[in-house]
């Protein structure tokens, strides 16, 4: 009998909250063998293999179908594919891992409160500096899609893989696209969120891959897991 592979975040708060959520739904997830290993199972569901995978790689694994199901943030899913709704089944929002992907500019830009204002400020900026304003982000695709949907194209992306909030004060970018929960880190770094600058309100999701090999039996296991998560308090 083939097994269903379920990918769970391999570390940090996301892993803990996922395990707690399963427990509240009546499913005990535990590691197999060494505590530092990356394989596990669910008690009472022998047809499930649990794979502990870094949350950013879970999206890629679901996209390719190398795992059947996974838990990860919607931000990471939408960043790694433009057509997530056709490639994946969204089986439920899990109520943790909240993060808003937002556009933030220096708080002292009193004349910029919207994407429209940003557009108006871009051309004078280019005249003064000889280049478009730079946007530091790790969400390159989300940023590009969001700005394209607003008809805004006068910017340059600079990839930032950490400490994105600091790029404005260090002078490597003029604005950023990053995740925030309370906005506190942004404020502490002299930034403000644009009024219409919320790209995505993200949280952890239970997902299934359309590219994975499904059998009627595996679909029953999938539905069992989805029901357990749904009724978890």
């Amino acid at each position, binding site marked *: 009998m083939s097994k269903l592979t379920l990918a769970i975040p391999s570390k940090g708060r996301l892993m803990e909250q996922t395990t707690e959520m399963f427990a509240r739904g009546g499913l005990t997830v535990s590691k197999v063998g060494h505590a530092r290993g990356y394989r596990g199972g669910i008690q009472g569901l022998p047809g499930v293999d649990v794979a502990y995978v870094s949350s950013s790689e879970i999206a890629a694994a679901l996209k390719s179908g190398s795992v059947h199901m996974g838990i990860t943030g919607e931000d990471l899913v939408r960043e790694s594919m433009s057509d997530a709704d056709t490639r994946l089944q969204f089986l439920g929002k899990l109520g943790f891992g909240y993060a808003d992907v937002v556009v933030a500019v220096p708080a002292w830009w009193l004349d910029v409160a919207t994407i429209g204002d940003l557009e108006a400020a871009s051309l*004078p900026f280019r005249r003064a500096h000889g280049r*478009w304003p730079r946007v530091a982000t790790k969400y390159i695709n989300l940023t590009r899609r969001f700005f394209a949907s607003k008809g805004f194209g006068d910017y340059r992306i600079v990839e930032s893989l950490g400490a994105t909030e600091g790029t404005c004060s260090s002078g490597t970018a003029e604005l950023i696209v990053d995740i925030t929960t309370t906005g506190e880190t942004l404020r502490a770094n002299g930034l403000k969120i644009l009024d219409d600058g919320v790209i995505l309100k993200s949280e952890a999701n239970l997902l299934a891959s359309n590219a994975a090999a499904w059998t009627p039996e595996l679909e029953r296991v999938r539905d069992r897991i989805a029901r357990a998560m749904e009724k978890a308090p």
Partner: protein
Amino acid sequence: MAAEPTQQFALLEAQAQVLMTVFTKAGHEAVAPAIIQPANVFLDVIGESLRARTYVFTDPDGAELCLRPDLTVPACRLHIARNGDPATSAKYCYNGPAFRFQPQDADETHPREFRQAGIECFGDTQGERAEAETIALILKALEAAGLKNWTLQIGDLGLFRSVLNAVQMPERWQKRLSDAFWRPDAFRAELKRLTTAPGAAALPAELMAALTPGDVAQTANAIQAYLDAKGIEVIGTRTVEEMAEHLLDVAADLSATPLDAKSARLIDSYVRVKGTALGAGQTIGKLLAGSKGGTGAALDTYDRRLALLANAGIPLDRVRFSAEFGRNLEYYTGLVFEVQAPGLDADSPVAGGGRYDGLIRAAGAGVDVPAVGGAIHTERLLSVLSRGAA
């Protein structure tokens, strides 16, 4: 994508020789700009939207490079590298590959790898005469290769600016409308804003009261004092002076009389002008006859251009004008043209070009240099000719 058939290669090579012979005989020096180019020049000139159409990559040293999406910017860089003074006049021609990402599987008229044959004329001081000569030479090369039934589509961003000049409005509004011209939605929104409520900005009254009209330095000091009082730190590369300039514009708009409806209609009607080049000239004449600024320079420029095209041997009944044309080609500054051929849709011109006086500066020269040029999409030309639709 299928490998290029041997026969296709031979035909393209033979066709390129015909095109290049026409160019070199007209005094254009054959050059071969680098295929791999620094990505930032393209991204800075055209904006982030270009990245979606360009093969951008990082080399082992971390430099961001790209496969050239066209040969115009590479030709500008070659010109700068070869000449101590970028304003030196030079005429180049080239034939070589360019690369553009195609979202679906590449078809015959939209291959992701294609060859451009083109000409550039840098540092010319003849203005519209050089533009007419460029168009005429591109058409001559197309005809030498066997194309007969072409139509020429032209647009003119200079003419748009002349129309704005014919309407009485503050210079900052003209600048803003010119900037927004590239984005039809933003343009309409800006025009509407100027005719209804030009100064509807929601900024603190305390700050606006502290501005000194006409004095950027004084205003910057006032803004700095306001920020200090609020405990807001100035971070990043944008300067307080830049914001002062912008806020002074905003303040001026607050007390400005909205643009009158008649002028707004004139601008809007101009943007919609489309048709044969001769007919469009008459339409523009009628539009401007009623304007405050009179017909003036705008129409003279248009008529002079048509006369130059006719002098260069181009039958005007095959020339079409559209005021909107060129809106999606951000680096052009004046004339824009495309050559359409039978059997190809409007999005697939067989050749195109125009004037781009700001491009050499953007490519690194630090000064504006007059530049006009055009290029032929050689795969499209061959496909039209081999289908016998020419």
